[in-house]
């Protein structure tokens, strides 16, 4: 049901490899609490990355609010299975709104990696791709090899897609991107061109 063999850093790097050439302007990337923050940060910090160091379960809804506010830009939420499970209702809320410019990637290693590698629900029977379909997502992908990640990456910038990528649970070195929320907020708004208030 869960977990896989893919190296999470290689997957994250591929997901954002062409982020700055996304349709409508540089891809806006919301990273859910946990290792997704380190993975996307390690691929190269950029002002369009918004890292969540808390607010567990909120990543998809932040992506929705941003996508509704910026309909000409592309938004990508990258999160883990634990964070997605905590905010599972948001998969229904986002599907109900069906923004055309938002995709969600769930890096699924079947574990709560931050807290001691306890098995998550995706190791215990839950399939988040099926949950997403049940919530009304029509465009759902499950990827478990790098060829699949290569094929997925451009689709994340043009479709409204939810993808579950099965990654290895192996530990990788920590990479700590900035965690000052006010700074991250200000720089993202400036990068988008939102006037200060």
């Amino acid at each position, binding site marked *: 049901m869960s977990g896989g063999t893919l190296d999470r850093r290689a997957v994250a790097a591929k997901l954002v490899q062409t982020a700055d050439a996304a349709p409508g302007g540089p891809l*806006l990337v919301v990273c859910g609490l946990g290792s997704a923050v380190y993975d996307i940060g390690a691929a190269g910090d950029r002002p369009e990355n918004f890292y969540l160091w808390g*607010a567990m379960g909120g990543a998809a*809804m*932040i992506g929705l*609010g941003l996508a509704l506010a*910026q309909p000409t*830009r592309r938004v990508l939420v990258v999160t883990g299975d634990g964070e997605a499970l905590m905010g599972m209702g948001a998969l229904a809320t986002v599907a109900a709104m069906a923004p055309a410019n938002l995709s969600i990637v769930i890096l699924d290693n079947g574990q709560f990696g931050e807290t001691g590698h306890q098995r998550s629900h995706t190791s215990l029977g839950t399939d988040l791709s099926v949950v997403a379909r049940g919530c009304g997502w029509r465009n759902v992908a499950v990827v478990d090899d790098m060829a699949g990640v290569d094929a997925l990456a451009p689709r994340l910038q043009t479709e409204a897609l939810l993808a579950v990528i099965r990654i290895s649970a192996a530990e990788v070195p920590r990479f700590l991107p900035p965690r000052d929320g006010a700074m991250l907020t200000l720089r993202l708004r400036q990068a988008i061109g*939102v*006037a200060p208030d």
Partner: protein
Amino acid sequence: MTELPWQDQVYAALKSAGVKQLAYVPDAGHARVIAMAHEDNDMHAVVCTTEEEGIALSAGAYLGGQRSVLLMQSSGVGNCINMLSLPINCRMPFFTIITMRGEWGEFNPWQVPMGSATEAVLKAAGVHVRRAERADEVVDIIAASATLAFDSHIPVAVLLSQRLIGAKVWTK
């Protein structure tokens, strides 16, 4: 000129404040405003499965340059506490309007514990709380509180008292 019902004036106040995204978990006391939001092509009306979703939506809206509001009832406040760290850490505005249960002619005892704790819990989590008791003060309080939230970048909640909303009638 006939004065509009206060619920209609609330919607007008939200529009005047520049609100473009309205998240909600329904409550009868918000029904009119929710219906108006769905009829408005210039408002994203977002039904949430749980109230903290609305806080995260508000954060995303702010990142993208839009203003938002979350409508909920007092029982939903308990679902929100950890997510309130998001606007506070990020120095973002957050604006919510909360209909109170469990405080005035309440029939359902299950509403009382959270209704009694709502104001204290919000304050403990760092939210500025205002309370409207009378129909003739609701719109002023909402307009001033929206300004406080959006212009001072702080989380602000307006509580609409159960006496104002009217206790839910269960029996005839």
